[in-house]
């Protein structure tokens, strides 16, 4: 008879559907993975830790800190966590001569609905993140780092701990790495269910053992970060891109993508496609190509809309989306954002009011409550969308939604407020008729007190 753990084991993902499907284009981070080859020796067989050896090479003199940062700048690598901030520039902000402790933090708190790329990196190729972090630490003269991992992917956290042990045993982590003068200690930390901790300053608070409530920025973490010390935070995928850049040069990376948008990027495609999963493709690849890799819209139906960068990104209708290429600039020009690279696909049968209802519930649920416009506004948005969806909307509700969104956007400590407001405005901009139609069908008889219930309770 099976014990509970064996029972559960049967239902665990193997990565075949999401990552080892062979439908990436020119992958760098996911290249050569099969689910069994995540260990140190496998990573080394793929050329792993060569970038670190190159930097610390005693024969050639290696690379200086400035050379590493210049290479990353040249690569035009932009932050993969959502904001797309140039990584080399961020690294150059770090006060390298600062006399006290400095910290390096990896943001693996992937919780943006639609995003599941960092999980597959950490689970199937953990050493690429470790190597990227060691290189970053070297470049900025940092001796201690943490990887903050989403609590929900606990098995991945445990695997990362194992990978850290391997790296320590092999002399890649710890004191005098590869017999050089450079030392770096790296540890793993796990969250426990709070979307807001993906915001970098909330993450730092959480790492300090507190509630994850965002801090005002500025000061940015580069000057006031973990325990008040200068700190650099990057996304998992950002660090994972670094070893390739060091091995092959900044120019080569830049050329993989397009100007100002260097390299490959992993897109997590979910929703109405035949083959949901993670797809690593060069930045600048047409959206139509990505859709083709995913087997097209599910059931041969027509594409209706796409949320191109995680649930916080404004939705785009099919015709606009089909003209976009997948890179920061193209998506921004179309009126949305590339964000975390979570592409949520919706077919012609989808109800936009219902979709927005679920997202509004999410932002209300995850608001940390510090700022009044966000705390009150997200609840308000949810209640109004709920009543429109459930036949009790009023004609004035559309204007009301817009004005509540207006009152949140730009008036809060962190970008969660904007993330809650932007989808509402975009849905109203592109699919107003669906809201109006529901409101027109609202009937007076329904106008009786009714308990409002959490989103999933009425699917």
């Amino acid at each position, binding site marked *: 008879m099976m014990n509970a753990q064996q029972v559960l084991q049967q*239902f*665990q993902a193997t990565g075949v559907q999401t990552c080892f499907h062979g439908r990436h284009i020119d992958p760098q981070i996911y290249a050569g993975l099969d689910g069994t080859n995540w260990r140190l020796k496998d990573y080394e067989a793929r050329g792993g830790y060569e970038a670190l050896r190159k930097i610390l090479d005693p024969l050639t003199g290696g690379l200086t800190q400035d050379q590493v940062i210049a290479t990353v700048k040249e690569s035009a690598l932009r932050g993969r966590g959502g904001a797309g901030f140039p990584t080399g520039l961020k690294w150059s902000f770090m006060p390298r001569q600062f006399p006290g402790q400095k910290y390096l933090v990896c943001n693996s708190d*992937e919780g943006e609905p639609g995003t599941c790329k960092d999980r597959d990196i950490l689970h199937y190729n953990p050493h690429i993140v470790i190597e990227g972090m060691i290189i970053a630490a070297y470049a900025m003269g940092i001796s201690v780092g943490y990887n903050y991992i989403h*609590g929900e992917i606990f098995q991945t956290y445990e695997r990362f701990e194992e990978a850290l042990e391997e790296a320590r045993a092999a002399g890649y982590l710890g004191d005098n790495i590869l017999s050089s003068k450079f030392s770096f200690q790296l540890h793993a930390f796990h969250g426990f269910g709070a979307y807001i901790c993906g915001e970098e300053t909330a993450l730092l608070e959480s790492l300090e053992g507190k*509630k994850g409530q965002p801090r005002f920025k500025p000061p940015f973490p580069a000057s006031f970060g973990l325990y008040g010390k200068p700190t650099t935070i990057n996304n998992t995928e950002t660090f994972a891109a670094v070893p390739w850049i060091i091995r092959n040069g900044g120019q080569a990376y830049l050329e993989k993508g397009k100007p100002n948008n260097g390299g490959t990027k992993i897109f*997590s495609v979910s*929703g109405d496609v035949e083959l949901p999963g993670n797809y690593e493709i060069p930045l600048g690849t047409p959206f139509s190509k990505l859709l083709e890799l995913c087997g097209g819209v599910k059931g041969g139906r027509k594409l209706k809309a796409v949320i191109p960068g995680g649930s916080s990104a404004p939705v785009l209708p099919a015709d606009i989306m089909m003209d976009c290429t997948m890179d920061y600039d193209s998506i921004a020009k179309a009126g949305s954002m590339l964000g975390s690279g979570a592409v949520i696909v919706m077919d012609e049968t989808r109800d936009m009011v219902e979709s927005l209802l679920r997202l509004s519930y999410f932002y209300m649920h995850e608001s940390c409550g510090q700022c009044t416009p966000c705390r009150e506004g997200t609840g308000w948005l949810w209640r109004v969308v709920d009543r429109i969806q459930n036949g009790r909307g009023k004609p004035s509700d559309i204007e009301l939604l817009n004005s509540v969104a207006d009152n949140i956007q730009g008036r809060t400590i962190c970008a969660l407020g904007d993330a809650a407001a932007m989808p509402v405005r975009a849905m109203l901009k592109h699919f107003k008729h669906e809201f109006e139609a529901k409101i027109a069908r609202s009937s007076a008889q329904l106008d009786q007190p009714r308990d409002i219930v959490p989103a*999933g309770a009425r699917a």
Partner: protein
Amino acid sequence: MNVTEAMKARFDREVAKYPADQKQSAVMACLAIVQQEHGHLTLEAEKEVADHLGMPPIAVHEVSTFYNMYNQQPVGRYKLNVCTNLPCQLRGGGVALHHLEQRLGVEMGGTTADGCFTLQQSECLGACADAPVMLVNDRTMCSFMTNDKLDQLVEGLRKAE
């Protein structure tokens, strides 16, 4: 006593990751360890964690109530968290939740009379392409959970008793 010596040994491995004057950083990991052992948190257990880390009990309680995965109340032997956020909803997350409601005879948020299962919905688990997905007892992700697989899982766990 809630916190055994074995648990304290695990706490100390967490504490060792942080600067000596920043033991508090280990609080989330310590609470997760307590929950793994006892199923849920109590004020007494939080107090023991607080003493171990040298922080005020109220600061520990603030943490345990802020994060979604800490159980403030007893839960069934298996806590099932089904993601119903939009990307999952588009691929049957809601269907999975409702199937379980019927199969287990409890509403979302409830615990079966035999204390075996607690059923909850959850926000994005970070495994959206595996939808429908479900997290069991905070630590094990179950992917592509069609109704058949949900039935198998429930049966399997009941038999594994």
